[in-house]
C-alpha cells in the first residue's frame, strides 16, 4: 500500500551552482542526438556510413535511426528498430563488432554505395569477417542510409 503522506518537494539547487546549470545540462543532453544528426547533414556518404556503423557497433540504435532515409523511417518506428535490432544481435550471439575499414563510395546521382569490412565476435569466440556494402540516398538533410539492406 503506497503511503499517502509523501509530498514531493522541489529539488534544491546545489550550493554554489545556479539552478540554470541543471537546466542547461538537461537541455544539452536532450539536444545532443539532434545536434549530432544535424552535424551529419553536410557529410559525405563515407562519413555518414562510418557514423552509422559506429552506432551499430555500440548498439546505439536511436542515433543510428536518425541516419536512416525518410522512407526507411516510415517503414519502421524508432522503438521497433531499436527493439528488433537489439534482439537480432542478441539471438545471433554477437558480443563485439569491429569496423575494420570503410572504403570510398561509388556515387551515381543521388545514390551511393559504400563498401566496408567488419569483424564480428560471437559468444563462442568465433570471429566472422564480413564484407558488405551500404546504399545511401542523398536527401534534403544529407546522405541517409537505406534500411533494411537487400
Amino acid at each position, binding site marked *: 500500500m503506497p503511503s499517502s503522506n509523501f509530498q514531493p518537494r522541489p529539488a534544491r539547487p546545489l550550493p554554489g551552482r545556479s539552478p540554470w546549470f541543471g537546466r542547461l545540462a538537461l537541455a544539452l543532453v536532450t539536444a545532443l542526438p539532434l545536434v549530432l544528426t544535424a552535424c551529419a547533414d553536410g557529410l559525405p556518404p563515407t562519413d555518414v556510413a562510418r557514423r552509422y556503423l559506429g552506432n551499430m557497433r555500440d548498439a546505439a540504435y536511436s542515433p543510428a535511426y536518425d541516419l536512416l532515409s525518410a522512407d526507411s523511417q516510415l517503414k519502421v518506428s524508432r522503438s521497433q528498430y531499436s527493439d528488433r535490432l537489439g534482439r*537480432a544481435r542478441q*539471438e*545471433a550471439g554477437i558480443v563485439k563488432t569491429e569496423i575494420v575499414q570503410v572504403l570510398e563510395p561509388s556515387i551515381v546521382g543521388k545514390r551511393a554505395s559504400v563498401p566496408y*569490412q567488419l569483424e564480428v565476435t560471437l559468444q563462442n569466440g568465433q570471429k566472422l*569477417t*564480413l564484407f558488405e556494402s551500404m546504399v545511401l540516398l542523398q536527401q534534403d538533410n544529407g546522405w541517409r542510409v537505406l534500411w533494411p539492406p*537487400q
Partner: protein
Amino acid sequence: MHRSKARISSIICLLLSLIFLDPLLGSGSGQPILGASAAGPAFPAGFLRLTASLPLPSGYGLAGSAQTPPPENKPDAATSDYLADPLRLLFPSAPASLDLSNTDQAIFANGTPGFDLFALGVLSSAESTTTTALTKTLTLELGGGFRGRVFASPAWLDPLPDRFINPQGQGKLQIEVKVRQDAGQGAGLLPGQTNWGRLLLSLNGTLFDYAVPLLVPAPNGVGRAEGEGVFTLYRHLTARLDAQGDLDALIGSPAFPNGGQFALGLIVDYLGEKEYNGRLPQLQFLDRVAETLAAKDYNADGWIGFKPEDVVIGAPGWALGKKTK
C-alpha cells in the same frame, strides 16, 4: 431531426450494453470468436479478445518445435498434417482462390506494424551452405477469416506453407522459414556477409513485410587479413563498370538492389574457392560479375555472366548467367 438523434442514441446504447453485458452472459473463450456476421451479440467481446491476441506481425514467436497441438481429426488430402484445424494448407497444385465470400472478416489489431524483422541468426559455417542448413518457425496468431500467401525473395528463402486459409475462428499458423541451397532454382547464399531476405505476407490483401537477415561466415582462407585482396578486386570491378557507363548497376538495380554487396559476396566466394581452382583468371571473373550486375554481354560471347563451364570449375551454380543468342 430530433427523432433521428434519438434513434442513433438508442442504437449506441444498445451496442454499449452488448459490449458490457456479453462477458457477464458468459461467452467463454473456448467459443468461436467471430461468427459469420460481425453484427451478432458475440462480436464486441470477441473483438476485444482478438485485438489482444492478434499483434501481427510483431506478435510472432520463435519456436524450435511445433507449438500447435496435434489435430485430433485425421487430416484429409487438402489438410496440412502440422496445422491445427481450421487452418488448412493449400498445396501449390491447388492455388488459393481470391474469393473471400465464405471467409469471415479479418481483424487486425490497432497499431499492427506493416514491417518487422525476423532474424535467422548465424549459419554455422560457410561449408554448410551446400545443404538446407537452417529452419526457424514464424508463429502467427490469426483471428477472423484469412486467406493468405507468403512470397519470399531471394530464392534461398523458403517458407512453408506459402499459402493457407483460416475461414473463421481463431488459429495459430506456423510458417517454417528454411534456407534453401539449390543451384537449379537459383537459390544460393553469399559468403562473408549478412544475406538479407524478404518475406511478404498477404492476408486478405493486406501486406506484412518481414526483413530476414542471415549471417553467413566467409570460407576458410578469407579472413580479416584478406580484406585488401577482396577490395582490390572490388575496385577493379568498379572501374570496369564505370568504363562501361554502368556504375549504377553496382549501387542498385531491380535485380540487385544492393549490387555492391552482391559483388563482394561473389568475390569472397571466388577467393575462397582459390580463384576457382586457378582456372578462371581475375579479369575474366570480373567480366562475369560486371555482366551479371549490368545484365549485358560486354565481351559479346553470347553469355551474360557466368557460363556453364565456369560452374564446372567452381563458380556458384545458382549464379549461372543467361544465353543471349
